[in-house]
């Protein structure tokens, strides 16, 4: 059934249904549902502590949700060990603090996934790794260690590392929040170029301008719920919720 629907092309790349997650008494996610079509780019906006990062981590099960379903390409993401490793390897993840492996050169950071998880030969992986580094304009830093790079370069290397796994979906968790202002642009440029190549992406961000220009849809979240979802134009110019308006006013004031 799934296979037939896949051929039709109308199975969403990502389908999230009624996701709940609590830490003790604190409910971080209170019933999140949304779809992400293939090639679609969605931004997730919202105040800090509303569960945006938890949502991303529940998608590849780095955090196990209490309830709810996550479907990737028409296949449900469940807890079976073998399956979960496979599913994670097909979802790229980029973190606020880059999280590069400090003991490995940039190229080895990019190649370690293909070599150790996908069992690619070293030669093949290096070729692929250099390709990915070229895409993020970092081929001249292939032999540098993470500590020798600027924040922007580290984040671009981290994007290359995720892309080297040839993911079906990319998750970005505030990719520019830890960067100096003058380094934000180079990272957003790379993400925009991925958007142009129709990579399916879910991006938690506070960059309103970027959400407007690079994303197809914006999700506004607060207190573990999706308050509204719509085109950037709609959400940013004419939001339905008072809270959305308030939040946007607050962050554009700065």
């Amino acid at each position, binding site marked *: 059934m799934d296979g037939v629907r896949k051929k039709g092309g109308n199975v969403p790349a990502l389908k999230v249904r009624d996701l709940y997650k609590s830490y003790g008494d604190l409910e971080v996610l209170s019933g999140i549902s949304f779809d992400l079509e293939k090639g679609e780019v969605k931004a997730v906006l919202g105040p800090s502590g509303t569960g945006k990062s938890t949502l991303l981590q529940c998608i*590849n099960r*780095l955090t196990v949700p209490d309830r709810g379903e996550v479907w990737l390409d028409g296949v449900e993401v469940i807890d079976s*060990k073998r399956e979960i*490793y*496979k*599913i*994670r*390897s*097909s*979802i*790229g*993840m980029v*973190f606020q*603090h*880059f*999280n*590069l*492996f*400090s*003991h490995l050169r940039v190229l080895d950071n990019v190649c*370690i*996934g293909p070599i*150790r*998880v996908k069992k690619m030969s070293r030669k093949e992986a290096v070729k692929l790794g250099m390709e990915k580094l070229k895409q993020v304009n970092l081929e001249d830093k292939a032999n*540098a*260690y*993470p*500590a*020798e790079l600027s924040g922007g370069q580290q984040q671009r290397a*981290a994007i290359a*590392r*995720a892309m080297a*796994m040839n993911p079906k979906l990319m998750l970005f968790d505030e990719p520019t929040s830890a960067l100096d202002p003058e380094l934000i642009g180079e990272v957003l440029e790379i993400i925009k170029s991925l958007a142009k190549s129709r990579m399916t992406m879910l991006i938690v961000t506070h960059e309103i301008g970027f959400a407007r220009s690079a994303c197809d849809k914006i999700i506004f979240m607060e207190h573990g719920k999706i308050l509204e979802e719509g085109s950037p134009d709609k959400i940013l110019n004419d939001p339905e919720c008072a809270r959305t308006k308030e939040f946007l006013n607050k962050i554009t004031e700065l």
Partner: protein
Amino acid sequence: MEALIEALPYILRGVPITLVVLGGSISLGLISGLVMAIAEVYGFRFLSMPVYLIEATLRAIPVLVLLYLFYFGLLGFPPLLVAIFALGLRSGAYQSQIFRGAIESIQVGQTVAAQSLGMGRFRVIYYIVLPQAIRLAIGPWTNEYNVVTKATSYAYLVGALELLRRARYVIAASHGNAVLIYSFCAIIYYMIAQGGCSILYRIESKLRVPGFEARGGWR
């Protein structure tokens, strides 16, 4: 004096035995220390609790008591093995704390990133955590190497014919010369300890990469 020179080869034949006790117990300590550290950091409660108890016990008991316990507990075992077991496990308990500290100082973000690539726990530990933890641990580990080097002298208590036991035989047979002969032993221990440390420091600087400048100080 002549008698002393004649006795030297006899004492020196204890050096290889000392080195065997050292090599054996530091290796046993390395393996058991790594296993205990990983169990304490990553193990579930039913694993980490007993490991913690074993480790705490081994650290709390004087090495002499431990040696005698193993000696009388493992009656019939060759003294060399008894010494290696007792000193090795004691060292493992100390080494586990060195490795635990090093493992816990690796940012959690890196293990999360590795998991997000699809690595399982074993691969994350083996490819991401340990290579970094070991770099950080070499410095403190030289300490433990010195401690174990010196602790090998306890092996004479359970009858291993190592350096110190031979020295005592010579002193007893030559009625004196204790200061001279013990000084000779001291020099040999010093050479073993310093030789090992300089090899370890060389390994440390060979493995050093930007971001792991272990001995920084002021800039």
